[in-house]
């Protein structure tokens, strides 16, 4: 319950955060909402010696209409995403997915950037932004770069973000009338998904991504390809786990996860056909 000792610095801008992390090196960790990191630290499963608090960088909390996409500041909280009228209009799938993250208290603190940077395949927003074809903006000592969501996730809790970079913005294409479905299957509402599905469909195109079906969020490209090729929803859903590599855990075997993915992809696509 009591974390190991660490030093603490508060950054007031992205530039300051990056300069601090360059100064302290590998031992430093960024702290946004803290809802991924602090529980691990309390159990002493993580023991960083320096925390750089980026939670106060106020100019990174926004949701803006940027023409073909919505630009979301990395420090925007889940609750703000859930309640955003702009997102409800243009990217309803993301607003809806954000309402399923953790519980109300967690959504008041946790941020989209923190969640994506933590790169937990069991979290809802990595897969959702992946399905939506989002682009993440990272800032580091060498300046800014954009990373497509599909190139971001590298392994278990591992992303292509360098240790001295922070996420500053998430760019999510507008859904322009696409239907969507979101399925989160868990035993208690507050838990991570055993399997989750974020899906959208618009005329010939679609995007389907899976939560907790491997060490990274999984883009179910075979499903989209099949749909484009004229497969029915049921037929396409049978391909749900083609790209996935799920594991056994306390709540589900690998086999059960694969089965669930098929059922939930089908249901998400059926919802997408209605919405």
């Amino acid at each position, binding site marked *: 319950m009591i974390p*190991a000792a660490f030093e603490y610095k508060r950054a007031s801008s992205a530039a300051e955060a990056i300069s601090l992390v360059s100064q302290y090196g590998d031992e430093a960790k960024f702290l946004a909402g803290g809802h991924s990191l602090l529980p691990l630290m309390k*159990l002493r499963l993580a023991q960083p010696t320096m925390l750089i608090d980026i939670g106060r960088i106020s100019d990174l909390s926004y949701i803006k209409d940027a023409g073909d996409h919505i630009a979301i500041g990395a420090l925007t909280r889940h609750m703000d995403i859930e309640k955003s009228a702009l997102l409800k209009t243009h990217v309803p799938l993301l607003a809806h997915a954000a309402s399923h993250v953790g519980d109300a208290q967690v959504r008041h603190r946790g941020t989209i950037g923190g969640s994506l940077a933590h790169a937990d395949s069991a979290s809802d927003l990595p897969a959702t932004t992946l399905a939506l074809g989002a682009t993440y903006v990272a800032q580091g000592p060498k300046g800014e770069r954009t990373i497509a969501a599909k190139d971001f996730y590298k392994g278990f809790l591992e992303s292509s973000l360098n240790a001295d970079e922070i996420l500053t913005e998430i760019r999510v294409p507008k859904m322009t009338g696409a239907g969507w479905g979101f399925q989160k*299957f868990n035993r*208690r*509402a507050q*838990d991570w998904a055993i399997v989750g599905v974020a899906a959208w469909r618009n005329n010939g195109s679609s995007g389907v991504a899976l939560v907790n079906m491997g060490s990274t969020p999984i883009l179910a490209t075979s499903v989209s390809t099949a749909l484009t090729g004229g497969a029915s929803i049921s037929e396409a859903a049978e391909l749900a786990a083609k790209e996935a590599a799920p594991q056994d855990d306390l709540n589900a075997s690998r086999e*059960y996860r694969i089965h*669930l993915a098929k*059922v*939930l992809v089908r249901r998400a696509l059926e919802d997408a056909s209605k919405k």
Partner: protein
Amino acid sequence: MTMTEVRPNTVIGTRLLRREDPALLTGEAKFTNDLNIPGALHLAVLRSPHAHAKIKSINTKAATALPGVVAVYTGADLKSMWAGPMPCAWPVTADMKAPQHFPLAIDTVNYVGDGVAAILATSETASRDALDLIEVEYEVLKPVVDLEEAMTDNVIVHDELGTNKSYTWNLKIEATEGCVEEAFANAAFTVSERYVQQRLLPMAMETRAVAAVPQPFGGDITIYSSTQIPHILKVMTALTIGIPEHQVRVIAPSVGGGFGSKLNVYAEELLCVGLARKHNVPVRWVEERSENAQATIHGRGQVQYIELAADKNGKLTAVRVRIIGDMGAYLQLVTPGIPLLGAFLYAGVYDIPHAYDFSCTGVFTTLTPTDAYRGAGRPEATYAIETAMDALARKMGIDPFDLRKRNFIQKEQFPYTAFSGLTYDSGNHLAAAEKAADMADYAAVRSRQAIQNVPSATKRLGIGMTSYFEMCGLAPSRVLASLNYGAGGWEAATVRILPTAKVQVVTGTSPHGQGHETSWAMIASEKLGIPAEDIDVLHSDTAIAPLGLDTYGSRSLPVGGVAIAGACDKVIDKAKLIAAHQLECSAEDLEFAGGVFSVKGSPDRNMPLAAIAFQAFTAHNLPDGLEPNLEAQYTYDPPNFSWPFGTHICVLEIDIETGQVEILKYVAVDDCGVQINPLIVEGQVHGGIIQGLAQALFEEAIYDEDGNLKTSTLAEYLVPAASDVPSLTTDFTVTPSPTNQLGVKGIGEAGTIGAASTVMNAVIDALSGLGVTHMDMPASPHHVWLAIKAASSAS
């Protein structure tokens, strides 16, 4: 003498709001870890990461050197501090095998979480930091995780015992010798079922906490503990540490739930006391949640084999039960007795000939010790008989409600001596069951089910029921003697009327959420005719309430509450002598109602209790030889257990594509006899049901093959939240207990006892069309899916 308004006796049965609530709702209440104890050192316990290992060496140097650390002790360092090993108060058989159990392991650790070293530091933070600096070298031994594997003795937990079997306890009741065998040989129908009662973590929301405050020069020690049993803890601490009992005072401050898990004497309590005495300073400890999962007792943990024999009409003719009970690594306070509390309930609510064969073997494993958890043995027994009844109904092709009706003990048969040898006080099972069936719309659900559960249906409707008897009011001391229990089952109360006619009720019960202060004041108010708000209830401090056997086993009301009524009677009897003296009449001529004594036939000649209290205090004009003051102590030893009963029904739907269970309706009709406060009774039923439902659908202590607990936090151990459980429909029948003057029975555990089998019977009912006839708890989506898959590949 003035006329006093006669107050009608109508307190019992009202929904009086709880007096406990304002302090709890405003943060004013103090739980143990809220207490400000100046100068206290903080204890932290290093715990074994291995299920079974020899301790080769412990290096405490770096930990000792950490700033703030006062001392670090190993089990060997402290061995001389103990007058004896930790207590097990229930040696169930004369030849029961029990390992020696000390607060810190000395040579061998026997479960993940077994204490290895103790740190004392000036802050909680320093004590926690020091844990990381102790180096222990272990020689890892083979663990014993599976119960049936433990029975083989291939790997032995405690070498010195030579076996993992602690005891085998048998109960065979036969009207004529060999009649059990005969009944099975002649049965038209038999069922033979195997059930697993998974281990559960009690997870009281307040983890355990202790503070021991010594008086170095006076020699006394005060122990604050988040416990259900201050009185038992006092005796056991005195014996284990070798302190004269009169120098130990135990206080249980506000206690944040127990559910049996705080019905124990724990290593950390003894460490705090021992080390506080050694260092002559207060020592405190608070348990972390992940520590709680490993170091606080677990519940359930049984494999049950039950066989029923029935004639061609489904009338039960014999019951045979074999149990393997998981003791865990050591015997805690009442560990071995828990499965035996169920031994008397395998007859359920049914009229069965005296043909019963029960046997339980308690075995050691290298897991956290088990002990009492809400219901303690009785939910397990009820689960077995009630799910086996459904299995029998399926085999016979009849409705399970119909089968139950054919077997219920009829209300005219009470008091009824069951094949277990105990006598049920009162009951009316058919009435409760029919009421529940009406509320659940049983017949309509059955019709809907026939339409809904067609072969193509992906949402399957199920309905399940349980009719239960609970054995409450632990316990008649003579019955406990026959079970070799190490104490009695009485409860004590003192009622004291102060000079201003305010009342102090002193009880030996020790509440931790049950609302005793409110209910006990209501009982005394009813008896004395004094408003409840003028009655204070004192408890949970052995200096204030020195006599008591505490709170567990739904005993507080049927034993402790009845003791209060008895103490009130004694006070009234004494007051009557004073009234007679002052009214110049004979005591026989007085009647007492609404707090006023009056002369029969001359109501204007009267004297209220309030006036008598003052007379008793001044003692100016008392009958010759009568002691001043109005106070009486009464100890009640119940002549029998009390037997609440009821029927629960659950209607649910299962999504067979995912295995998800959704409860559509949960109905409970309970009968706990006379209700003191229906508001509190309903609350107990609600909480109990959800705890039982959680066993059926959510909770399970999962161990890996090495004996590591994989569900050691509330993120992994699935205590459900409001979002995960249904609203409940509850109602009651009232069949007073004839064995106590209040007619009460107890309600603390009934919900839990009824719920698990109710839900599981509904689950199996929903899936029976798919060939599913059995599933172990919890019916998680994954388990449901596996069961459907197994059934479809078998067919």
